[in-house]
């Protein structure tokens, strides 16, 4: 009897496993669209490549694309860009003429590539500016574009989302590796007068009118007259030719606002901006002052005094 019971239990377990297997296999083959989430997820590395190269020379650069989502088919292309704003954002120039102008500079596999889930693909890009290339900077974005499944949404009112991801390539065509670099301090500013409880940040904007992009290497040193000294390291962000870039400060590997620490500030603060271009050459400097005064406390005291005076007048006794 016990043997019969055991046999029945085993049989039921086996039937359950068989049934589960059948249901999932049926879903897999009859409704493929329901099995996979439609989440498209890509990553690209490295996010930035900086190249200085003599025209006529060539190099190979590898960019790796990884698929962390559903299987996709992707296509690669290289598109020139110009700086969009002071925050390091780009404006892609995607007209066919602009793309074709540089098509001979880059050689990589342009064919559609299938990427399964968790699969990576390396694009080996041969970069060869011709000998006739003008000695200046050229900026590009290597774009990976997902080819959408055109069968999705057929027959229904639908919008499809297409994902593209990019990595930037900053290329300087130079004979000697040392293009002339020219920087201007567009802005080094902070409020002149603040309330002691306000807090404030320093704003730094640099412009590049030279022949190659650069990074500012330097710091802001803030001396509180008769007080402490605070130092901020400037973030070595790229300032591209013909553009302006707002430079933040660095805390370890993070970019932070150049904000003076402390909840209560009082006195005169002398800030000195000092940096070099790429860490070499002459130092560029500018100095500004900020006065912090406890206006709110003063206002409060005045209010109390006036109120007290009024009360005394109304009640002389």
């Amino acid at each position, binding site marked *: 009897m016990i043997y019969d019971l055991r046999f029945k239990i*085993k049989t039921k*377990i*086996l039937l359950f*496993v068989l049934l*589960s297997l059948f249901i999932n*296999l049926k879903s*897999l083959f009859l409704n493929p669209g329901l099995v996979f989430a*439609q*989440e498209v*997820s*890509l*990553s690209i*590395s*490295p*996010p*930035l*490549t*900086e*190249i*200085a*190269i*003599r025209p*006529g020379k060539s*190099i*190979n*650069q*590898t960019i*790796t694309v990884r698929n962390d989502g559903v299987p996709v088919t992707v296509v690669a292309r290289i598109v020139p860009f110009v700086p969009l704003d002071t*925050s390091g*954002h780009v404006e*892609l120039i995607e007209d066919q003429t602009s793309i074709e102008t540089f098509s001979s500079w880059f050689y990589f*596999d342009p064919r559609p590539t299938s990427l399964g889930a968790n*699969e*990576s*693909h*390396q*694009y*080996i890009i041969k970069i060869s500016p011709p000998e006739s290339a003008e000695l200046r900077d050229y900026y590009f*974005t290597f774009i990976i574009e997902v080819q*959408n*499944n055109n069968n999705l*949404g057929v027959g*229904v*009112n*639908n*919008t*499809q*989302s*297409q*994902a*593209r*991801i*990019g990595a*930037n390539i900053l290329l300087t065509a130079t004979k000697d*590796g040392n293009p002339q670099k020219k920087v201007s301090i567009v802005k080094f500013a902070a409020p002149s007068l603040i309330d002691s409880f306000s807090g404030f940040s320093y704003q730094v904007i640099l412009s590049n009118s030279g022949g190659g992009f650069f*990074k500012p290497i330097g710091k802001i040193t803030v001396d509180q007259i008769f007080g402490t000294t605070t130092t901020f390291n400037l973030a070595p962000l790229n300032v591209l030719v013909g553009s302006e870039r*707002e430079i933040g400060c*660095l805390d370890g590997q993070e*970019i*932070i606002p150049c904000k003076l620490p402390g909840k209560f500030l009082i006195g005169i603060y002398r800030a000195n901006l000092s940096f070099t271009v790429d860490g070499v050459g002459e130092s560029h400097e500018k100095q500004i002052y900020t006065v912090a005064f406890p206006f709110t406390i003063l206002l409060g005291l005045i209010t109390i005094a006036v109120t007290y005076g009024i009360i005394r007048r109304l009640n002389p006794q």
Partner: protein
Amino acid sequence: MRKFLLSAFLLCTLYFVLCTGVAYAQAEVISPNYIIQMPNLNSGAGLPSSSNYKVSSTIGQNAAGLFSSAGFRVKSGFQYIYSIIPFSFTVSSTSINFGSLIAQTPSTATNTLTVSSGGAGGYQVKASENNPLKIGSTGTTIPDTSCDTSCSETTAGAWTSSSRYGFGFNMSGDDVPADFTNSTYYRQFANRDGAESPQIVMSSIYVGTGRESTVTYKVNISGVQPAGVYNNMITYTAIPAY
């Protein structure tokens, strides 16, 4: 008992093989028509195998003297970030269905955009549409919304009236433009057919991971909108800051 265990084991193995993805890492790029000679020469790229990879080290050479002999200098990554961290972008759902459109009854749907720029000082995501929602065969469109009073591809406006028609989107969550004041504010998508430039829908100047925003798509049609199936495509382009 043995037979039972063996059967269960075989069934489970069959199940896992058929119903779970098997990922093969791609060892190298090889194609019968595209031969790569000396891959990765002069390259500092690829996914890092060590967190101590020095981004600031140059591949090729470091000094001007070495440049003059080799003729190039390459740096990968960001000088202040000591590992090459991949830049990643996720779109939660690529197919947004609106179902049957009923006059003066707005239909909405959402998906999410997620960006991780741990290896970059900032990023941007731009969006544009290939054309307004359109019946492919006839070219009839549902125009981009003008909201209750006005809105464009660059500036959001309140859109709450059911007698205002069109197609638009709202953004909420991390790093979205400030003109999306609340959930009732919508923009048009930049229309590439109309030579409009893609517009930023997410951006930051800071290093960040898992930055997520929600896109809410909204369609509202009038009673005279021609019947048909309307489709279009929204392209989202995520690029790290330089």
